[in-house]
């Protein structure tokens, strides 16, 4: 007797039992073991189907992100460039300038670096790294290291003559602090904090605080955009769900066409409409509502970003709302009305609470997408419409402070993952549908 299971594996079942009374298959193996083996094989087949994609995503997607996040704490520059100096600095009291021994070690480190092949030299990266902490460090260190082969003992004086940086205890404090393989300084910078002269964590000067405000603005703009998509999306989702199927499908095109249209196309559409010489301003001037000199500035600022992003993200709100509203039987509201509720009460107490899963799904979805948005703020955001993504891109592409970019990115990623976890708790991934 043979029984075929779901994946076509045959488990032969016999009627014999062994000496311990366990059921045996027809070829004499214990039935339990045979079933377990078949089960294991099916598990392996299932996993084997998933494995190629899993490997692909882990190697080319997950690993690069983890590696990038590692940059936010990774701190090899000082450790690799100045091993002797760091050892000599261990006895330093941190009050006045270090002793001659430390300067001699620094001289030796710099001389040793010059013997390395150009690509392996460590003083260049050191200069860049210390420049994030003291803005004069880059020039000072590269200039000193170029002339270091002419230095003679006593090295302390030689260094102090070479650049005023070496006459200051500050640089030594930083070298000592950053002479560890891991650092918190990128994260401190990302929350507008820094170390003071006693290595205590303090907030940066008021005029150099950027990132907390930027995170705040990113969250505030995302909230406004989420609310706008809700305010615009709720009525049309309600209207669509009240229509017969054929009409609803026709009007649904109005939602789906923007959804399928290239993001760059939609962004340039808003530039065309909103710019100073654009369609809206021209129409207002043409109708005599505005003077030619008082054209509205609606683009390259926060207003433009919010308008364009609301338009771009509106379908993400309408689609989940619509699919939830579709499932609400109209008889509930009718029953409420026949029991004496006014239309408003029936809507507020009976209909609206049932749409909450849709609102939650759409709201979290729009919010998650907006806080990580890059393209639209970069193109129409101007100065005050910039978001955290733009700052991350700037640090990677132009200021080259990759550690800070990684720290900001990790903070953004953690917020998005937390929100996504919340989204999953609220509605589950199954409600994510497209088209």
């Amino acid at each position, binding site marked *: 007797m043979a029984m*075929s299971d779901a*994946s076509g594996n045959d488990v032969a079942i016999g009627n014999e039992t062994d000496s311990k009374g366990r059921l045996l298959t027809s070829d004499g193996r214990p039935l339990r073991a045979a079933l377990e083996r078949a089960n294991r094989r*099916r*598990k392996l*087949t*299932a*996993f084997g*189907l*998933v494995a*190629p*994609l*899993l490997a*692909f*995503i882990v190697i*080319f*997607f*997950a*690993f*690069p*992100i983890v590696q990038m996040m590692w940059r936010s704490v990774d701190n090899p520059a000082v450790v690799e460039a100045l091993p002797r100096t760091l050892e000599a600095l261990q006895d330093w009291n941190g009050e006045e300038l270090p002793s001659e021994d430390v300067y001699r070690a620094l001289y030796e480190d710099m001389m040793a670096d010059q013997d390395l092949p150009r690509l392996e030299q460590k003083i260049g990266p050191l200069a860049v790294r210390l420049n994030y902490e003291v803005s004069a460090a880059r020039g000072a260190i590269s200039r000193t290291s170029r002339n270091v082969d002419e230095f003679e003992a006593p090295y302390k004086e030689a260094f102090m003559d070479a650049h005023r940086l070496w006459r200051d205890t500050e640089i030594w404090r930083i070298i000592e602090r950053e002479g560890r393989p891991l650092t918190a300084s990128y994260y401190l910078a990302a929350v507008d904090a820094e170390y003071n002269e006693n290595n205590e964590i303090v907030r940066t000067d008021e005029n150099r605080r950027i990132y907390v405000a930027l995170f705040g603005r990113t969250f505030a703009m995302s909230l406004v955009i989420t609310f706008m998509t809700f305010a615009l999306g709720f*009525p*049309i989702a309600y*209207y669509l769900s009240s229509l017969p199927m054929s009409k609803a499908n026709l009007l649904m095109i*109005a939602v*789906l*066409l*923007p959804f*399928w*249209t*290239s*993001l*760059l*196309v939609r*962004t*340039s*559409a808003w*530039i*065309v409409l909103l*710019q100073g*010489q*654009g*369609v809206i301003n*021209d129409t207002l001037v043409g109708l005599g509502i505005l003077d030619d000199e008082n054209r509205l500035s609606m683009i390259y600022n926060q207003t433009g970003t919010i308008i364009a992003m609301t338009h771009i993200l*509106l379908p993400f709100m309408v689609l989940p709302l619509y699919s939830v509203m579709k499932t609400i039987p109209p008889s509930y509201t009718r029953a409420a009305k026949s029991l004496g509720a006014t239309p408003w009460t029936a809507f507020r107490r009976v209909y609206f609470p049932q749409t909450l899963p849709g609102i939650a799904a759409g709201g979290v979805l729009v919010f*998650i997408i907006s*806080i990580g948005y*890059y*393209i639209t703020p970069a*193109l129409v955001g101007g100065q005050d419409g910039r978001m955290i993504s733009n700052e991350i*891109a700037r640090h*990677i592409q132009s200021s080259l402070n*990759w550690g800070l970019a*990684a720290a900001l*990115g990790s903070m953004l*990623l953690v917020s*998005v993952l937390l929100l996504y976890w919340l989204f999953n708790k609220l509605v589950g*991934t199954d409600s994510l*549908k*497209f*088209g």
Partner: protein
Amino acid sequence: MSLPAYYTAKDKVWHYAFRVICFAIFFFLLAPILIMIPLSFNAQPYFTFTREMLTLNPEGYSLRWYQDFLGSDSWMRSIRNSFVIGIAATILSTTLGTLAALGLSRAEMPAKGLIMGILISPMIVPLIISAAGMFFFFSQINIAQTFFGVVLAHAALGTPFVVITVTATLVGFDQSLTRAAANLGASPTTNFFKITMPLILPGVISGALFAFITSFDEIVVVLFVAGVEQRTIPREMWSGIREDISPTILAVATILVLISVALLTVVELLRRRGERMRGLSPQ
């Protein structure tokens, strides 16, 4: 449309006001996209309607921006690049994604939740973070600024859509069909191509279309990972908007809108076909 007889005056006002509001929102959704189509025929290098255009004077209209687009080497190269990269990334992500969806929809799949979470992460992680990570990693393994690198990146971004659509199709899939085929002696391969594939095909195709449009419309990763040789249409539009904004962009935009209308139609037809087929098969 006739209103119910019991509607009071207030109900009637609200009824019409609500429709006006809704159509205003539909207008907000569609107008910005549609307004670019007439503007792309502007004879002047402006982003607004000229007097000639408004009076429907033929002199106000021209095809010069389309000529500009068709005669430009960099735009033509970007079209070729977009299709080459898009199609290669779609093939890769559809193959891997469909296999994974088949595995994930089996009851005996271990650690389903965790694996699903990893597989759909490219859809959740903000693009700027994915792009930055790939930028560093691809530079290390020397595939930054190559077609291969951009295809891999886009395939990774496209797979979640394939996994989700195909898994959704498999939810309504009647496993007794494959069991019957196996019982009648079909090998797993025959079983897959003759039984499973025809049934899940609508899901696979719409997943593939999503993967294609993801790649076709993707710009952030291209900005970080692609070189000049791999510039795609969105990348070319990005420079167009940032550097010298000319109405050529509107001509390109019009063509892209037509492409998205075509894709939207295909997806919609597939969806209806899928619903019809599932409606017919006994659940």
